[in-house]
């Protein structure tokens, strides 16, 4: 399964003087859950809008299913189920009307599945979209994104601002989608624990730049948190190769490092430190260490 559903090459984008995307390159292979993480304003939505063909690549290239989404919107959008961050749905429609309306756009719309989802999310057919609660609105958006059984499910901040029950529905939809052979999920989130639960592959974006992009398992293998103890107090954090973030004072310092565990241990011993704790950091800790000021020494 080497086939890539998404290929982005050297994509850059400016809005006025702001660099929204800076030389972003990524591949998403078929059948995986790809999590895009970053703070608000990091460039996640800008990237997603390029994938949907809502923005034309001015510098670099974007391919979805091997096609240019701007030149071939039908070929691309017909195979994508998309839930936007704003959940922009036609407010004046009722739930049933929304379903009928959306069905017209998708030849592969599955009426039975749509009805199943509507019941599961407890959406009343006659309810006006504008009267739906925040959670119900997200579920309505998810229903129409899923009902044509898309090859690629694209979710922009799907659980932002939702209560835990609806969030479970969203994550459940991600899991069910990818459990069906050959379907792919691409979602953005700033909830790192959520990403760590469901993603196979993670990309971290910060101020428009890709700071890390790898299989979640590899990311976890490649980072460690170690607590070092020294015989004498140190005025500043020990400077070891691969340190992303250092906190502590005096004789005890906590370092989040990248690299091989054996090398880190050797380097620590080289400057007279003893490792008293060694653990694998959470994705959240890794993200923070890469995004916040690199070392505070």
């Amino acid at each position, binding site marked *: 399964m080497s086939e890539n559903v998404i290929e982005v090459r050297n994509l850059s984008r400016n809005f006025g003087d702001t660099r929204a995307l800076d030389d972003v390159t990524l591949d998403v292979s078929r059948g995986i859950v790809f999590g895009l993480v970053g703070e608000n304003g990091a460039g996640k939505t800008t990237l997603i809008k390029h994938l949907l063909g809502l923005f034309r690549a001015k510098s670099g290239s974007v391919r979805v299913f091997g096609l240019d989404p701007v030149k071939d919107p039908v070929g691309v959008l017909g195979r994508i189920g998309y839930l936007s961050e704003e959940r922009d749905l036609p407010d004046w429609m009722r739930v049933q009307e929304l379903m009928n309306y959306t069905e017209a756009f998708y030849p592969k719309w599955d009426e039975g599945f749509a009805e199943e989802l509507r019941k599961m999310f407890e959406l009343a057919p006659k309810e006006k979209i504008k009267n739906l609660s925040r959670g119900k609105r997200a579920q309505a958006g998810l229903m129409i994104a899923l009902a044509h059984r898309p090859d690629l499910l694209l979710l922009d901040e799907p659980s932002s601002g939702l209560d835990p029950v609806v969030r479970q529905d969203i994550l459940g939809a991600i899991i069910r989608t*990818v*459990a069906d052979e050959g379907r792919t999920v691409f979602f953005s989130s700033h909830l790192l624990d959520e990403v760590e639960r469901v993603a196979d592959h993670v990309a971290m974006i910060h101020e428009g730049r890709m700071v890390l992009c790898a299989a979640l398992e590899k990311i976890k293998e490649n980072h460690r948190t170690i607590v070092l103890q020294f015989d004498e107090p140190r005025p500043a954090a020990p400077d070891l190769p691969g340190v992303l973030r250092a906190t502590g004072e005096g004789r005890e310092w906590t370092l989040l490092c990248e690299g091989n565990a054996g090398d880190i241990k050797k380097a620590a011993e080289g400057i007279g430190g003893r490792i008293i704790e060694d653990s694998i950091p959470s994705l959240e800790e890794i993200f923070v260490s890469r995004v916040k000021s690199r070392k505070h020494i």
Partner: protein
Amino acid sequence: MRIRISLQGGVPVYLQIANQIKYLAASRRFLPGDQLPSVRKLAEELVINPNTVARAYRELENEGVLVTRRGAGVYVSEGGSPLAKKERRRILSERIDMLLTEAGHLNVNLEDLMDLIGERNKILKEKEKKS
């Protein structure tokens, strides 16, 4: 099946699942021939990536704890795998280590501890007989 996942503590999720299933099998909460939930079902229940569950099942299959019957699901393997025995020993060893440490703190030597174990065993057996 009650499995709990924690993202803190650094143990990979697939390993947490595999260890807990081993524990359930070794402690006889799962009997040989019992069916496990499908990959998809357990993934939804735990809200984790199905690939993670599949990996845990695959590891357990390699170790002989589980068997997959084509098209019929995943089962605890028949006849108690050698690993289940090993796992039972491992679980008991952990408890014994704790007991020995405790005895050490209380200044009870091994001989007295063994006597006490024998005594307690007798009492438990008698209770069982009565009920």
